């Protein structure tokens, strides 16, 4: 896991790229003037706001990140069809449940991404990350974290935990190298 970027004038390369793309999308143009203005803004804004932010781990493997993004998008579409069938089907057959998933990730940024992915994919909504940071002594990091998720139709708890860990958590560990 690396927190510092390679160049000091570009502290957060992916945020700059995102700003640049959003600028061009908002103006809906590819003209030279907007490209230059967008590039200047994409470099200046992260430089100006960087000191206020907590340092987040950088994406170390962009190719893998892109592949993971496509996999998640595909899963979102299939998940929605499944959830739509579950919603339209009989409510009495559903077995809702809360499941605690042990996490290997330690940093808050990858955990946030994992929780959002879990929320968007089949029949699960992430609810909470345990243990509570307030319940620990000041400045101490918990050794093992858990993600509490709510499942719409729980059939096999172990299989679900295994799927989440292998399909979504393992690529994130590789992408952030932590």
């Amino acid at each position, binding site marked *: 896991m690396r927190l510092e970027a390679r160049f000091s004038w570009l502290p957060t390369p992916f945020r700059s790229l995102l700003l640049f793309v959003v600028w061009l999308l908002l103006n*809906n143009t590819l003209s030279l003037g907007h490209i230059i203005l967008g590039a200047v803004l994409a470099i200046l804004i992260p430089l100006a706001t960087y000191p206020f932010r907590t340092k987040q781990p950088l994406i170390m493997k962009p190719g893998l990140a892109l592949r993971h993004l496509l996999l998640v998008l595909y899963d979102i579409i299939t998940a*929605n069809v499944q959830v739509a069938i579950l*919603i339209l089907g009989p409510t009495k057959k559903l*077995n809702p449940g809360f499941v605690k998933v042990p996490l290997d990730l330690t940093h808050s940024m990858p955990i946030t991404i994992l929780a959002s992915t879990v929320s968007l994919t089949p029949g699960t909504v*992430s609810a*909470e990350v345990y243990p*509570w940071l307030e319940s620990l002594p000041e400045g101490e990091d918990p050794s093992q974290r858990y993600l509490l998720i709510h499942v719409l139709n729980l059939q096999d708890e172990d299989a679900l935990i295994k799927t989440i860990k292998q399909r979504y958590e393992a690529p994130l560990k590789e992408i952030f190298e932590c």
Partner: protein
Amino acid sequence: MAEYIISILLLIGGCFVLVGSIGLVKMPDFFMRLHGPTKATTLGMASLLTAAMVFFSTTGEGLSVKEILISIFLLLTAPISGYMLIKSAIHHKLDSIERTTGKDNIEDDV
């Protein structure tokens, strides 16, 4: 040709948005209600906005891709608002229906 694509995308999107709202009304407890709007509505909106993108690209002047911004924004914010909602529901100790398993996994918050 583009007309057919737009129509199909619009109908898919409308169906998903409707399914999300049906889930909101039909489900028996809050935690199950949350599943409809966070998932079905998000994909429905993405589909509707793709239809709008195709529509304005074919009828207006030139390519129009800015609708994708709203899709990305909704896709990024839906899990966060879902997380905030379920957190406040747990804080208020809302009841889940009786056959919910693993209720003892919920810890009391501080």
